[in-house]
Each structure stands twice: as structure tokens, then as C-alpha cells.
């Protein structure tokens, strides 16, 4: 039985300014010469991070009531449709929402403009009721005028993600970037050995209630993300070789910064939001020390053909190979490119490390762990949509 630390013991060290904190990349280097037991002795917290486009993101906003009041039953923010089925003046603006007439400016851009303190045109319509007599309003809102704005992302921080290639003779425009014909390029998305859920593949320390870095401030993991899947095949190092677990996260959008929350538009695909997430992993024991020591050459993912329906798998590569600039798939050498920002992810891991060292960020024990043995359902098409 080796060392076993508690969350409270680590937090005590953080408060005393004595905690040893490394980034996941630093600990992977340390692991070349130190055993998991030695790492568990010497290191208290490891910071992980990612900065990628995460489409399943959005914000809850409460506008406050006008005089006379309106029950908003159709809502536009800078022309972008926002959800109208949440009481009178609450809304949810999804990152990928857009007006088809103006597809390059969407929900993610509204969210970024709100964060940047810019004025947003709010236009809303209602049928008029006894208690909400007004039928129309057109006004200006911003960060200061709204009551709350809360980032709530149902699916972020995918644990691993496939590499995208395109075997067809036509360019394919995807959320994994523009894929050149005839497998002339391959794109990959996660931050590899720095990526949060790749450093805790069994989610022994990450669960509901985990305090995280989100968009430039402190946020929380609030639930397993949608499409949370723990049934993907794992490699010999215990890492799933395709997209598997996910996180639902939440935080105060008013405190966030567009340095870590960036709207994006993908040609012939649509709008998305780059989200900066950093997660501290407490090194409670040698087992967790071993998990956070994982290196790019030990993390594998699946190469999928995005040009073909169903994105069939073509092979498996490591992140070390992906980072080298070239992979080999079915005997063909393919140039690689990232589509999420490793330099930003590193910056987040460093900021998180520093705020733990400064005693500003304490680790939190999950109030509930994530479910195990979950899998994915697909959408069945039932004829006529009728019950028989």
C-alpha cells in the first residue's frame, strides 16, 4: 500500500502555499525518470487543458422585465434566434444557432459579443396576455444590463476524438476543417497528453461538482456530457481509442474572457465556439500518478474517412505521430494538422497551475461520480412516425 492523499490534505497544502503543481506535459516528462509512486510522493496536483471548437455550447440569459412586461415567445439577438420556451424573459442561446440569411454570425458570436461587453440588439415578440400585455420589444442589451448570463455547455471536452481524412475526389467541408481530396491531409483535435479526460481515463477524480477553469474563470462540471460513452475500446494504456466520455460544464459568463471563448465559423458547415477548459487532477495515489503520466506515444486514436457515409475507420495512430506532421494510413503518407489550439491549451494549464500555486483555486472532490457502462443509441427512423 503506497501513498494515499485526501482532497482535504491537498487543499491544506494549497492554502499553505506548499502544494506541488505540474502541468500534464511536465508530469509526463517527469515520468520518464520517476515511478508512479515517486510522482505520487512529490506531486499534488496536475493541470490539464484543452482549447477546441465545442459545438454543444450555449448560454442562459435573463434579460429582466420591461415596463409594460412581455412574455417573449420569439426572440432574436442580433438577428440570431434564441430559445423562446423558458418563461417570460429567460432564454438559451445555442452556440450553433444562426439566421440562415446571415450564416457567418451565429450564437457563438452573440456569446462572444456579450462577453466582450458589446451592445446586442434584442428583439422579441409575444401574443400579449393579461399579465404580459406587451406584444413587441426592440432594445439594446449588454453584459451590464442583463441579470444573469451563464455559460452552460451540454457536451464539451471530449475524451479523445477521431482523426479526419477524406478519400473522395471532392473537398469536404467539416467541423474538422477543410479536408482535401484523396487523403491529402488529416486533421486531429485533442491536446493529447495535456487533454483533461485522457489524463483520468476512468474518471476517478473528475465528476459532478469538479471545479474547473472555464472560459477564463472558475466553473464546474455539472453532469456527464451528452453522448457520454464509456464503452469504446481501450488500448493497452487504458485510453479509449475514439471519442468516448464528455462533460457538461457551467460557469458565470459575465466573468469570462474572449481570450478563452472564441466564436468560429466553418465554411459550408456553420458556427461553433472554441471553449477553453482546464481541469486539475489531484494526485491522490500512485494509480492516478500513472494515469497523468501518459505520453503522446501512448495515446492512440482512430483515423476516420469523413468523405464516406458513416465515417468508416481506416486505421489507428498515436498523438506522437500526429504531432510529427505526418501519419501513415493504409500505406499512404498523409500530412497532419491540428484543429484545436495546443498553445492556448498550454496557456490555460499554466494559468490554472499558477492560480493553484497562489492559493486562489482549490480542488474539489466530486459530489457524485459519473455512471459506468454507458453506451450510445442512434436515432431510429420509425415509419410515418406513428404508433402502431
Amino acid at each position, binding site marked *: 500500500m503506497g501513498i494515499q492523499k485526501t482532497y482535504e490534505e491537498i487543499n491544506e497544502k494549497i492554502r499553505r502555499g506548499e502544494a506541488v503543481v505540474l502541468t500534464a506535459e511536465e508530469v509526463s516528462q517527469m515520468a520518464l525518470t520517476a515511478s508512479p509512486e515517486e510522482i505520487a510522493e512529490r506531486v499534488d496536483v496536475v493541470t490539464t487543458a484543452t482549447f477546441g*471548437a465545442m459545438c454543444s455550447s450555449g448560454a442562459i440569459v435573463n434579460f429582466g422585465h420591461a415596463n409594460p412586461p412581455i412574455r417573449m415567445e420569439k426572440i432574436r439577438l442580433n438577428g440570431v434566434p434564441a430559445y423562446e420556451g423558458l418563461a417570460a424573459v429567460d432564454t438559451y442561446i445555442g452556440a450553433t444557432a444562426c439566421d440562415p440569411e446571415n450564416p457567418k454570425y451565429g450564437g457563438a458570436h452573440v456569446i462572444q459579443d456579450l462577453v466582450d461587453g458589446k451592445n446586442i440588439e434584442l428583439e422579441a415578440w409575444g401574443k400579449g396576455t393579461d399579465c404580459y400585455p406587451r406584444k413587441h420589444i426592440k432594445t439594446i442589451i449588454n453584459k451590464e444590463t442583463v441579470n444573469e448570463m451563464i455559460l452552460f455547455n451540454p457536451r464539451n471536452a471530449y475524451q479523445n476524438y477521431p482523426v479526419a481524412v477524406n478519400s473522395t475526389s471532392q473537398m469536404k467541408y467539416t467541423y474538422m476543417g477543410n479536408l482535401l481530396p484523396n487523403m491529402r491531409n488529416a486533421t486531429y483535435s485533442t491536446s493529447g497528453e495535456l487533454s483533461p479526460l485522457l489524463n483520468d481515463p476512468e474518471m476517478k477524480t473528475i465528476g459532478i461538482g469538479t471545479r474547473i477553469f472555464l472560459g477564463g474563470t472558475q466553473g464546474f462540471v455539472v453532469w456527464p456530457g451528452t453522448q457520454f460513452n464509456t464503452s469504446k475500446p481501450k488500448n493497452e494504456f487504458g485510453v479509449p481509442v475514439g471519442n468516448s466520455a464528455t462533460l457538461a460544464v457551467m460557469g458565470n459568463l459575465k466573468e469570462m474572457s474572449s481570450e478563452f471563448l472564441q466564436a468560429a*465559423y466553418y*465554411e459550408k458547415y456553420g458556427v461553433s465556439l472554441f471553449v477553453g477548459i482546464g481541469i486539475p487532477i489531484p494526485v491522490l495515489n500512485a494509480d492516478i500518478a500513472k494515469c497523468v503520466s501518459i505520453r503522446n506515444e501512448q495515446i492512440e486514436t482512430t483515423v476516420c474517412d469523413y468523405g464516406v457515409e458513416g465515417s468508416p475507420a481506416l486505421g489507428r495512430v498515436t498523438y506522437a505521430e500526429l504531432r510529427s*506532421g505526418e501519419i501513415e494510413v493504409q500505406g499512404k503518407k498523409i*500530412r497532419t494538422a*491540428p484543429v484545436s489550439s*495546443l498553445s492556448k491549451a*498550454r496557456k490555460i494549464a499554466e494559468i490554472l497551475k499558477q492560480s493553484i500555486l497562489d492559493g486562489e483555486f482549490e480542488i474539489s472532490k466530486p459530489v457524485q461520480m459519473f455512471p459506468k457502462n454507458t453506451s450510445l443509441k442512434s436515432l431510429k427512423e420509425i415509419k410515418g412516425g406513428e404508433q402502431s
Partner: protein
Amino acid sequence: MKMQKKRYVLKFPPQSGDQPFSYHLVKDFDIRINILRAEVWPGKTGSLVLELEGTTTNLKNGIAYLQENQVSCEPLNKKITWDHVRCISCGNCTAVCFAGALQMDPVKWELQFDPEKCIVCELCVPACPLNLFKIDFRE
């Protein structure tokens, strides 16, 4: 003599379509021409992206010859702008840049742009999710 290699964007007035400029650049000024990109519509303006290789004097004289014939000739690097302040170094542009002008620094993983390698294929313009590339090519 020291040879120089430079890339230029040439713009042709509508009436110039029948003149063999490239022949004269080769024959009269001993300039090696590599055509990187061409857009020519008879009766309208045309543009050409060329890599010119020659001695400093010959390049200077060749360009002067083009300008005398109302063909504007500007160095390519002035025609490409990249808003590096807003760049998040995601790497999407490097996926489509087969000329190798846009590459990730393999240590810092920040985007590096080498205008000398750019062939103005313009694939980076729609590939950038933040729309940070502006190429002033057609005007």
C-alpha cells in the same frame, strides 16, 4: 552575378491581352518565370502571380518594362495580411496550405506564416474559422 528570386502580383489592363510579356521577360531580361497562378479574361483585366528569378539588374529592368506597358507589378508579400493578434493558432489553415507557407511551430505550436512560400491559392481564407486572412489579389 547574384541571382534573386521574388514573387510578384501582376495586373494587366484590358488592352494588354495580346502582348507576349512573359516572352520578353525571358528573352530580353533573362528572367526565369514560374507561373504560380493566373486569372485572365479576354477584354477584361487579368492578374498573374509569378515567381521571377534573375540578377538584381535584370529583375529591376524587367519590372520597369512591365510598368512602362501599364502592367502593375507589386511584391506578393504586400498582398497578404494575417491578423496574427487575433489568431488562436488552431491550425485549421495549415491543413489546407500544401505550399507550406502556413505551418505550426513544432515547439511552441503557434502559427508561423512564411509569405515567401505562399502561392496565393487562397484556401486559407475560408479555412480560417476566425476569418483572419485577407488577400488583396483581384482588387
